[in-house]
């Protein structure tokens, strides 16, 4: 299907241009990445600006730039106009990067497209160069205002070195665009804009890849917090590097160690209970399929799957309605026995694991059974008929035909739950936990949330999260290898 655009002589010039294009594209990617990193923000012209702003947020929102400026504005240390200008300047840099991007994308097309792309990149480069001087002007203005107010030490005007990188990128882009334009000068231009399908498809995919990178891969960069003494709201600086301090803390600090042991007990205990009872949905499906009354079976299936689709918050609302001190159960007991019952079922630490298991079952068993129900419907009816002829009873058929047919599915799901042994999720345990049952309820995911978001112990909770992620991946590979060895099929 692909058409060859480079018919005829492919000149040395074009080869050089292709190499230069790669430099251009890499430069553009670097430029895009820089936009999102607060530590490389050229628009941070003074110390009172928030350290955690990226150029991108400076460009899209004026309010975030001046978020901490209340006093500085009131006392005229800085001029509002300068920061409006800064906002527009940042936005212009973003636009210049977008232009360069467009040019870079067009460089994947035919010569006509390439040449147009070069023009677009060149404009992007020029705009970026101009913004360097604009930024310099803003810096001078801010310094001037601060000096007039005599508050240089408070405002701390600064001209970020990263501005020179942006300038270099702009100049580089412009230079490559010009050189390539000269190199491609003699190459004849086609009538239409066209692009090879492989690049065309790639460019359509690019935004999706970019989103995945930003939201799934970029967080990995946050693992560096595990090695720094970091408190929420600060910036990282090399002098805060502490190496493996927080890794050691897990083992060396008695308090943390005790916490971790309890948390691991809860995690493994509740996951273990889940694994031990993982046959229940299968049994549920087998017995359900023994019900010959179609409408009743359908009814059961519909209503036992509904709880799977409500949130844990709602499950907790239900738990409160039924089991709180003035809930349904206590009210019923009171009215039946005549004595006042107000047992705090939810507020006690007794049998926490079993209670959580029960709620998990209530919510999930009907839905988990559906996969087995479908498998049962796929079993060859001939097997049952042959068994009947051989004189097998109902239970014998269930045990000797249905169960063995379901075992492969069961096995896969079991391995997955073993691989997920550390990931109980936090929602269920968060909503059900209260001061009374906190000890027996805190699983790993919830502990990370409580420490990290609740208490702001970012490095420690990052370390725990990191270890958890790595162990989970190892478990998954292990389970997969096991599955391959035993069944000859992988599970992922």
């Amino acid at each position, binding site marked *: 299907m692909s058409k060859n655009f480079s018919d005829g002589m492919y000149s040395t010039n074009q080869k050089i241009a292709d190499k230069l294009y790669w430099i251009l594209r890499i430069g553009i990617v670097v430029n895009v990445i820089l936009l999102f990193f607060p530590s490389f923000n050229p628009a941070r012209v003074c110390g009172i600006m928030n350290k955690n702003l990226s150029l991108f947020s400076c460009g899209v929102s004026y309010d975030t730039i001046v978020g901490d400026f209340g006093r500085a504005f009131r006392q005229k240390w800085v001029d509002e106009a300068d920061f409006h200008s800064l906002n527009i300047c940042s936005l212009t840099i973003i636009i210049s990067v977008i232009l360069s991007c467009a040019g870079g994308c067009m460089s994947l097309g035919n010569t006509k497209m390439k040449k147009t792309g070069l023009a677009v990149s060149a404009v992007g480069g020029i705009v970026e160069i101009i913004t360097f001087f604009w930024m310099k002007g803003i810096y001078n203005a801010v310094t001037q205002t601060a000096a007039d107010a005599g508050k240089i030490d408070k405002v701390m005007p600064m001209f970020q070195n990263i501005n020179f990188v942006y300038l270099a990128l702009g100049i580089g882009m412009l230079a490559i665009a010009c050189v390539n334009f000269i190199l491609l000068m003699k190459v004849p231009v086609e009538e239409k804009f066209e692009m090879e399908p492989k690049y065309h498809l790639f460019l359509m995919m690019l935004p999706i890849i970019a989103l995945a990178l930003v939201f799934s891969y970029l967080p990995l960069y946050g693992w560096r917090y595990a090695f720094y003494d970091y408190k929420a709201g600060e910036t990282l600086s090399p002098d805060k590097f502490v190496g493996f301090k927080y890794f050691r803390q897990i083992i060396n600090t008695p308090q943390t160690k005790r916490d971790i042991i309890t948390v691991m007990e809860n995690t493994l205990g509740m996951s273990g209970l889940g694994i031990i009872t993982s046959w229940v949905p299968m049994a549920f499906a087998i017995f359900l399929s023994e019900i010959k009354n179609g409408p009743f079976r359908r009814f059961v299936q519909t209503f036992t799957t509904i709880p799977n689709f409500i949130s844990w918050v709602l499950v907790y*609302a239900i738990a409160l*309605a*039924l089991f709180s001190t003035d809930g349904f159960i206590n009210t019923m007991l009171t009215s039946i026995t005549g004595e006042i019952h107000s047992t705090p079922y939810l507020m006690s630490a007794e049998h926490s694991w079993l209670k959580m298991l029960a709620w998990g079952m209530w919510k999930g068993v009907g839905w988990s059974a559906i996969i087995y129900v479908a498998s049962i419907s796929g079993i060859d009816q001939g097997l049952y008929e042959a068994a009947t002829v051989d004189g097998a009873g109902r239970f014998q058929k269930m045990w000797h035909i249905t169960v063995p047919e379901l075992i492969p599915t069961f096995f896969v799901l079991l391995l997955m739950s073993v691989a997920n042994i550390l990931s109980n999720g936090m929602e269920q345990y968060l909503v059900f936990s209260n001061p009374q049952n906190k000890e027996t309820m805190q699983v790993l995911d919830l502990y990370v949330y409580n420490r990290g978001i609740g208490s702001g112990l970012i490095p420690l909770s990052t370390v725990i999260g990191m270890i958890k992620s790595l162990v989970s991946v190892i478990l998954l590979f292990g389970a997969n290898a096991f599955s391959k060895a035993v069944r000859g099929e992988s599970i992922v």
Partner: protein
Amino acid sequence: MDIADMDMNEHKKLNDSVAGTSGMVEKPTPADYIFNVINYLFFGIFTISCIFPFYYIFINTISDPSYVTSGQITLLPKGLTIVNYVNMGKVGDLWTSVIVTVLRTVLGTALMVVVSSLAGYLVTKKEMWHRQLWYRMLVVTMYFNAGLIPWYLNMNMLGLTNTFAAYIIPGIVAPYNIILVKTYIESIPAEIEESAYLDGASYLKIYTSIIWPLSKPILATIAIFGAVGQWNSFQDSLILNANSPHLYTLQHRLYIYLNQSSNIGALASSGDVSTIANSLNTKIIQYTISMVTIIPILCVYPFMQRYFEKGLMLGAVKG
């Protein structure tokens, strides 16, 4: 045959053949009778345990507040009224939450479906530059993540904390759904697409005029799962938008009311009368918000059940 019809038939077959062993008529033995009775009883009771909580909350919301507060509602509503819902309507922050939740459900689901559909189509195209690499990159994210805290710090760094966009943008690329769509599109006969290509249609044209209409069943499935996920989402509101009450989702709002109630409930057992009155008032609020939060799911689920099951089956094929 239309693919949607095929789905319908498959589904019917699935339900009809659940009975499994219906091939032959056998003489029931006493053991069979006992088994059947126990079996029906078990499923009957379990099903009731799944329905009753919703019913119980519902009758409390349509009963007169004085009966509810004195704990007189057990199996039947008393003093039918809609006053609880009317009162609820006066609570401003509930409306904000409803609007936020509805908006994120609609917008988030729509964007996710469109992007999953396009991405699912694109990753089936073998001629794409480094297709395997991009596809694997998406798949890996399902099995591996950096963890909660790095995720939070990342969102913070991107300036997405305390914004509505935090509900929408991260969810646009959903690798699992992309895989489902890809698998589905691969099952569509390749000839249909090839003939269109030979007629000179562009990829985008093929996508909009052939792939999109043909893959509607799977898109409906991922849309419905996506919508339920958005409606139920609670963690992003709790973690990312904790400082912006105007962005709290319905689930988050409900969580706050539930906690208030249980805290006040704990006080109430210590005997402070005014807090008891307060707590019982919170109880009605709590029931009513629960109902508001559940109703869309209860209304939609029975009609959409086949799409849910379809989604589960497709996921199972993929593993």
